[in-house]
């Protein structure tokens, strides 16, 4: 428990489902390749990267709660791959157009 204590007794400040919803809602602004935020335009890939960061947080929390984190293998590689999957999955899913 000593290494992973930061997850043990606390919950995420926002539930992962809420985070996923926020991420998805931010995607659903018409799936334009450029998203407008108060007059500034952001490329879709950037938004995907940010949303994927939240998704990664949620997924890691789930993985930890399930207790399978110690068995996933090299964590940096695996979580980087999860992040990549989330980013590219969001992009391909919402912005392939």
């Amino acid at each position, binding site marked *: *428990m000593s290494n992973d204590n930061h997850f043990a007794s606390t919950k995420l400040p926002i539930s992962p489902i809420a985070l996923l919803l926020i991420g998805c809602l931010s995607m659903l602004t018409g799936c334009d390749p450029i998203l*407008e935020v108060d007059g500034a*335009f952001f490329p879709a890939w950037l938004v995907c990267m940010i949303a994927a960061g939240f998704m990664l947080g949620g997924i890691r929390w789930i993985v930890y709660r399930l207790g*399978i984190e110690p*068995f996933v*293998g090299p964590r*940096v*590689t695996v979580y980087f791959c999860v992040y990549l999957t989330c980013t590219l999955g969001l992009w391909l899913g919402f912005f392939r157009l």
Partner: protein
Amino acid sequence: MTSEPAKSAPEPVKAATPVAPKAAVSSSIRLKKIFGRLFGILSVVSAIGLSFLTWWELDIRPRTDDAYLRANIVGIAANVSGYITELAVVDNQKVSVGDLLFRVDVRPYQAELDVALANLAYVDLEIQALKDAITQREADIVNAEAVALYNVQYLARIEPLLPKQFVTPDQVDAAKRNVKSSEANVLQAKAALSQAQANLGQVGDVNVRRARAQATVVEKRLNVGYCEVRSSVNGYVTNFNSSVGQFAQIGVQVFALVDTSSWYLLANYQETDIRMIEPGMSVAVYLMAYPRVHFRGVVQGIGWALYDQNQGSNGVLPTVSPTLDWVRLAQRFPVRIVMDPSQDAHPYRMGATATAIVESNRRHQVPDILKPLLPDALESWLDTLTTPPAPMPDSPGR
């Protein structure tokens, strides 16, 4: 990293089920191990697979955010100089072909037209006078010829009388002189006729004097017409900053019209994307001005030339930039995309920022290096991501 699971795995199990039987604990750990391994492997595989799909997607459907909506601009300038006396439009107004835009003070040009018309009437009178002169010259010839004929006959009558001395030699000489003189008079009268005919200026069916006067009338009438400046296109008035009283110079633009009959997108594509683009391909267009609205266009052509900023010349010698960056930026070539007609709900505006995605219908070739790695089924599935190549319509851009 790999040694961590062995260290930390038993701890949560101990904490959660301190009194559980040993068999149940090992079964739970085994299950978690399986799921953990599966999760790790799947995440790596999916990352590799999605990376490949993304690369594929970006390659077969080249896109750019560096695109701008364009229309043709018609600079409006007066064809005559003068003060603007009336402005019939305001800035941003919609105009159609033939609509009055503004008027230039017509009075000087109307006066010039009146002068030209009067000159034409005067030329007509002149021509009549010149025709009368010709008739007079013709009469002169008849008269001169009659005198010449009489003189010849008179000489013929008196010349045989000289040997019999009925006439003096002087009378014969005078008659001969008269013959010569009257012949000269005939020639002179004929020359005068020719001169009068030339003065009339008749060439075939056309009288040059009248044609010149008529051309002047046409020119002056055109100038009067030019005082009303009308629209030559359907479009919108733009950059209109004039008012009544401004002096309009010939050929100097007063404002501009945006020709709305044809809209196009200039999408600057990297040179690496150009190979996937051909005229006739369909393009999905997204305008920043209208989120969630999708527009369509067709590739008309790809730019053939760019200005080379690294090369130049100074006098007779070339100048070459001495720097060569490690990272070379791809050049961008403008691809002209003809847009679908503008809709009233979402009117186009020149200069609007856009994103263009070419629906390249070129069949994508799986790179040779990947072929041994991909099963045939996956290759054929990837092929279905692209539509089969369709015959390209002839395009002026090709």
